């Protein structure tokens, strides 16, 4: 079985977000990027399937600044191959454009199961999983956890609100949008990543196409700030508030 993980980098929301001079997107030079945390869950789920059944795991990312380190880390964790998908355009505008590029890349690979994160912080035009599945014409269960794979099919839980879930079985080839792997993403020491960087190499896969979005952002802005919270000076003020609320006597 060949499990392919589709990952992307997303803006690190802990950092200040700066809008570019055209006012339509974040300024890439002022933005810190990191691996989408849900894609990290997808990678972990793929590695767990490999641990249990001995499958091959490949990780695909659109080529961009910073993805080499993410891909080498994936190899150090146990992925078998790491592939940079290269397009004419440096930036792909949104998930539909990314889904088209990834569909073109997957068209050149034999795959059984595609895993990606349920969502990303920069999603504005749909979730990558169901967009990609639709382009590939494979079944998709999104918001997935509790994955088990065997004999050409997977069973999976799909999460709803209120802690409710449904169990589905899905034929392969197919795609899952992963909410949470069965365990937290594994840790890999930096020394091991460095070692892998010396021994292994990343593959590059060129894909042809325009990969245009279906919609465009006309303007981006920070939401209008409400008056917001009344700020407290420290723990003593918080304690006074708790007393006022009758929580502490």
């Amino acid at each position, binding site marked *: 079985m060949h499990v392919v993980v589709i990952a992307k980098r997303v803006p690190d*929301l802990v950092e200040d*977000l700066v809008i570019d001079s055209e006012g339509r997107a*974040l300024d890439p030079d002022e933005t810190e990027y990191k691996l989408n945390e849900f894609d990290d869950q997808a990678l972990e789920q793929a590695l767990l399937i490999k641990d249990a059944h001995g499958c091959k795991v490949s990780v695909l990312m659109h080529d961009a600044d910073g993805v080499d380190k993410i891909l080498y880390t994936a190899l150090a964790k146990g992925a078998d191959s790491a592939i940079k998908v290269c397009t004419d355009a440096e930036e792909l505008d949104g998930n*539909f454009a990314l889904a088209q590029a990834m569909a073109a890349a997957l068209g050149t690979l034999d795959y059984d199961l595609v895993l990606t994160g349920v*969502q990303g*912080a920069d*999603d*504005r*035009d*749909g*979730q990558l999983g*169901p*967009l*990609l599945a*639709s*382009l590939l014409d494979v*079944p*998709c269960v*999104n*918001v997935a956890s509790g994955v088990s794979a065997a004999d050409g099919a997977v069973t999976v839980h*799909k999460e*709803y*609100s*209120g*802690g*409710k*879930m*449904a*169990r*589905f*079985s899905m*034929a392969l080839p*197919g795609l899952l949008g992963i909410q*949470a792997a069965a*365990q*937290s993403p594994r840790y890999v020491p930096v020394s091991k990543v460095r070692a892998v960087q010396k021994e292994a190499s990343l593959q590059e896969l060129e894909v042809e196409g325009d990969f245009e979005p*279906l*919609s465009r*952002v*006309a*303007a*981006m*802005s*920070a*939401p209008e*700030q409400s008056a*917001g*919270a*009344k700020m*407290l000076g*420290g*723990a*003593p003020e*918080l*304690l006074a*508030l*708790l007393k006022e*609320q009758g*929580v*502490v006597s």
Partner: protein
Amino acid sequence: MKALVVAEHLGGKLAEITFEMIALAQQSFGGCDLALIGGDDSMLAELGAVGTVYRAEGAGLEHYEPERYTDCLAAIIEAAAPARVCFGHTSMGMDLASSLSARLKAPLANACIAADTSGATSRILGGKMNAQVALDGELALLTIASGAASAADGRLAGSPATNSVAAPPERGRIRFEAMVEPEAADVDITTQEVLVAIGRGIGNQEGVETAQELANALGAAVAASRPIIDAGWLPKSRQVGKSGLSVTPKLYLALGISGAPEHLEGMRGSATIVAVNTDANAPIFQVADYGLVGDLYEVCEELMEEIE
């Protein structure tokens, strides 16, 4: 502009988001039709505010199955010919909207908090940015964020006209097997008066104990945002937010929770919200009544000392 709202239901009941979308469609597009897949006749009684209810008819529609429901909706969209289709920004709505966007090559705006006939406002980047998306095509899709409009404004007694649409046959690639009941909760966080809620900012598992000690001192229970549950540090029954529970305690003390929209959805209704976070720009301070910028461990320690 002709709009279609995709109804969502679970456990035999229409979800609140359905009525919120109806209200939004009235304000933004002057009214709407409604797509109902599965569900039963009793649901129609609350749908007096919609024009026509398009009902997919066929066997095996009782339970949501992503491919079958997508196929049904494609048939309903063809029959109803709307210019805008509204889905909940929910587990089901995200599936359906994304699948149909790619299939029909229809633009999609995600997690919308507002819309009009020329575009929509998507709330992105953890609620830190709004993207104004231009929509000028014949057919465009929107997922609507929870709270974008008032459900009460969309709920109206009545008996709307219905129009049957034959459900396409099952493809059989995905099979619904069973509903999985939530695990039994040791503590019911929905009935607590005071909640100490922890998020990613606690940093490590020991932080759960710190929070529990503070909760004990305050006669409160510990709740958490998603990352704490995914790390396995607390059971799912303690999760507040979109895929967890909605809570409305008298006091919600949020420690190290940044305030992603998915979390805010589950705790916005708390009577008083107090947030402690190291990031003064964290969105949680926008919904909190009181805020404290600082290290949550130091704050907890000082509080515990004072209380004891």
